[in-house]
């Protein structure tokens, strides 16, 4: 292999490895979120749920309100069949 070929291969390999790892992390997060039922958080999707660990005034919406409260750091997005109210959505 020529010098240029080796350099291009090295860069390609490095970027592919980082992109692959990033994709794995994002997809794993998405899969776990779905498994836990963390879905789209909308005002009408579910009745507010009291958050026992946060005292008065702390409510979250969605089927897993208390869990969501604990899952700070994870966005509450993506399809969640239980909390979806718009029938036009797939």
């Amino acid at each position, binding site marked *: 292999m020529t*010098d*240029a070929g*080796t*350099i*291009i*291969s*090295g*860069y390609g*390999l*490095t*970027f592919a*490895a*980082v992109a692959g*790892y*990033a994709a794995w*992390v*994002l997809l*794993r*997060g*998405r899969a*776990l*979120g*779905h*498994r*836990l039922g*963390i879905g*789209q*958080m*909308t*005002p009408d999707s579910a009745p*507010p749920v009291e958050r026992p660990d*946060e005292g008065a005034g*702390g*409510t*979250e*919406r969605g089927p897993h309100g208390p*869990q*969501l*409260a*604990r*899952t*700070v*750091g*994870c*966005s*509450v*997005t*993506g399809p969640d069949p239980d909390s979806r109210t718009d029938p036009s959505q797939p």
Partner: protein
Amino acid sequence: MPATAAEPDLRSSKNSPSPIAGAAMTGTIATRVLGVVALAAAVVMALLALWVSPPERVQGDAVRFMYLHLPSIWVAYGAFVLTAAASARLLWLSRATSPSGRAERSIRRLDRTAGAASELGVLFTALTLVTGSLWGNLTWGTYWQWDARLTTTVLLFVTYLGYLALRRLPAEPRQRARRAAVMALIAVVNLPIVHYSVNWWRTLHQEASLSLTSDREITGEMYWTLMYSLAAVTVIALWLGVHRYRVLRLEDLAEEDAIAHLLQERRAESADRVRSDESAVTR
């Protein structure tokens, strides 16, 4: 608990539609911005390293590997130091036999930080070894030599692979976190050995290209490209680290969920048994 960059407070988004609908489960506006910045930084880094930076007088174009190799080990060093710092703090907080709820939450956060950082460290150490090997083939004429720097780096890589394996062994979460923290503090001892191996022993690997104490050997466009690459790879690693931390948080939740589900099943089973016993007695 105050919200941190790694753990934004969802309370701010209660009663309002998610502003990041469609994003990955572990994404927030901040991480999406960071992700775009990281992607742009990577593209610019490739352009600077492959086109703008001139070839070196002796090594020629092979020097372009420096812009991948040095930032990779820089991030790996940082990640392993963070792993060790989080582990030390974790062990300190978990001295008490029954820590308070707040301490318990801190312990879990520190454990996740150590887990995410160590995984990044392993990834970037592997990239350091691969890029170093390719670079070595162009400059030394061989992919591998058992010299001090290369050997200690492989040892570092294998040690942290062991650390990641230890984290996956089934155990009670607090015990697992403590066990991993002890291992992290043992593993980090190799870090200064890797770094100073080129000074302590006669090695094929060159001495440090950048130093805070001596005059720098790289100047001009090569120097600024290297500085830029260090910053770009750091931003990329930061983005990856934040997401990995959040995935570890979801993994913890999934584990709790699975345990709660099993407990519920056991309770239902025993309730059924009691009911059937009662009906047998009544008959």
